[in-house]
């Protein structure tokens, strides 16, 4: 690439004095007349049409595709500049509050990196998101099409905010399914109308929970609403200890009961049967004996 060497300017200067690149075709010396008899038996094929566009089809230079080529991340910077120019152009349009702006699922950082194909740092992507959010705050009724199309280019595929959660109901066999968690335990309860039979992992309640307190708390949702003899429960519990399992069942049972009788919600809420206890064991940290306990102080 001659223009990258130091002598490029000198060469370019020299090229000024060169003959023009377009030259006329030379007329052929031998000439035939229409009246002459044809010498060759096979007539020569006609010359191809003159290509007037030869000059425009000749390569001249190799140049970068983007004006931000030398920054190392040209696509990202082009996006930022485009968004900034849009923001400046429509700065005077009225805006709505952030809470009233339509909810948009922008690219997550890894998705955006795939989209531009460059290693974009988190901080820079956040600054880009800020511009997107400002543009999104322009009043939706008068938002220009240009802004709309630009913004939609930064949305991740599929709209996660369009999916509505389907409310759970009792299935065709009259079963209500509820899940609950407490500490390390997970419980799944299948609740049907019946005579008050309870099976925990295929065993009776007394076999699984030796303590009366645990049995009480496991069936607390039924007991506090006086429905112990009106439902049969088929329970699966996994993980954790006895207390955790019992209280996981409480939550799962409360949730399953709500599907049968939604009117019980205030009672169950007040009784604490559908309140989630989100406490978990705190992790141990390095430099400490337990999660928070410091090692005993030794003088030396």
């Amino acid at each position, binding site marked *: *690439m*001659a*223009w*990258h*060497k*130091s002598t*490029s*300017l000198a*060469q*370019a*200067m020299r*090229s*000024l004095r060169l003959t*023009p*690149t*377009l030259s006329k075709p030379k007329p052929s010396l031998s000439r035939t007349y229409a009246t002459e008899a044809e010498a060759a038996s096979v007539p020569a094929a006609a010359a191809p049409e003159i290509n007037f566009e030869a*000059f*425009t*089809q*000749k*390569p*001249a*230079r*190799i*140049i*970068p*595709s*983007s*004006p*931000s*080529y*030398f*920054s*190392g991340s*040209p696509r990202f*910077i082009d996006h930022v*500049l485009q968004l900034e120019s849009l923001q400046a152009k429509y700065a005077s349009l*009225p805006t709505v509050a952030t809470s009233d702006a339509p909810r948009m699922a922008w690219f997550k950082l890894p998705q955006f990196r795939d989209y531009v*194909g*460059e290693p974009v740092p988190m901080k820079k992507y956040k600054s880009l998101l800020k511009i997107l959010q400002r543009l999104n705050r322009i*009043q939706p*009724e*008068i938002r220009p099409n240009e802004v709309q199309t630009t913004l939609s280019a930064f949305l991740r595929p599929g709209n996660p905010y369009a999916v509505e959660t389907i409310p759970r109901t009792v299935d065709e066999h009259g079963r209500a399914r509820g899940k609950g968690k407490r500490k390390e335990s997970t419980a799944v309860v299948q609740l049907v109308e019946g005579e008050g039979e309870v099976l925990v992992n295929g065993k009776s309640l007394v076999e699984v929970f030796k303590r009366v307190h645990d049995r009480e708390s496991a069936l607390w949702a039924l007991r506090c609403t006086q429905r112990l003899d009106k439902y049969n429960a088929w329970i699966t519990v996994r993980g954790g200890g006895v207390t955790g399992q019992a209280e996981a069942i409480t939550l799962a049972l409360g949730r399953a009961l709500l599907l049968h009788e939604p009117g019980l919600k205030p009672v169950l809420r007040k009784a604490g049967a559908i309140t989630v206890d989100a406490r978990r064991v705190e992790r141990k940290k390095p430099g400490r004996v337990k999660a928070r306990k410091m090692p005993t102080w030794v003088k030396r």
Partner: protein
Amino acid sequence: MIIRRTCRQLLALSQRAPVSSRFQSTLPETPVTPVQAVQTSPKDEITRPENPLLEMVQAQAGANTSAQQEIAAEESHRKNFSKLGTTVRTFYDPENVIRNPPKPSQISLEMLLAAQTHLGHSTSRWNPQNSRYIFGIREGVHIISLDVTAAYLRRAAKVVEEVAARGGLILFAGTRKGQKRAVVKAAELAKGYHIFERWIPGSLTNGEQILGHCETKVVNALDEELPDFKADLADRPSLKPDLVICLNPLENVVLLHECGLNNVPTIGIIDTDADPTRVTYPIPANDDSLRATCLIAGILGRAGEAGQARRLKMAQEGRTTYQPIKAEVLHLDPFTGQPPGGEGQKK
């Protein structure tokens, strides 16, 4: 006494005269009652087309939603009342130097003075190599000679124009806060390239690694892209600029060093504390004032614009001011100079 009487008579005559004229006038005088006046006035307002309220109502009729109506109403309100008040004719618009930068032919000492290009650094921080650009000392600060600045700026503008006219890649680098818009605008005018964030060290000396993934294209003399040659660009070495314009050489030591290693000429704004030998074409000026750097970047951008226009005009006539790359050369392997898959590559 006689004189006084005649005077009185004369005065009386003169007082009577307007009364007589009243009787003589053909138009009968009809006093307007206040009730009538009140009745007529609203009709007049409605029929008058220049009524601002009416225009607002008409503008609202075209809009659909309430928000659009509001905006239309605001606009018509602004239109009607913008003529009121005073007009300020001479004022300083800080955006103007970025939006509409001056041409190199418009450089004047007044313009440079207004942009504070003459202010250097405290005398204790000076680089003695800059003594030939320094006009004097004022309040412990070096003052750069404006006529020297103008001369060097004109020379730099000429360099930029000639490089642009020969199809060179011009890189504008201004990495200080606030220089971004000026740098982008100058690059846009000169059809050049810009850097307003950190220069990644090694972009020239280790370009394969840092700029290898950035896209390039093959263009013809009229700057139209030729997509047929896209396949030949895969293994090409990364591009290097033909001219670098650095607005803050003190912070871009690495950039200038790499340019020196790669024989890339540089233009730099040299303040009194900078080393003028670091750049090929120094412009002695204040590099700490955004006004000064924006002005200089704008002028150089305009120079590049003129050069590009010249080059494209020549291309329209079928001439190029540079050695165009040939299609055969594009197809050759850039490292061995042999056709791809040939003997040269095997060895």
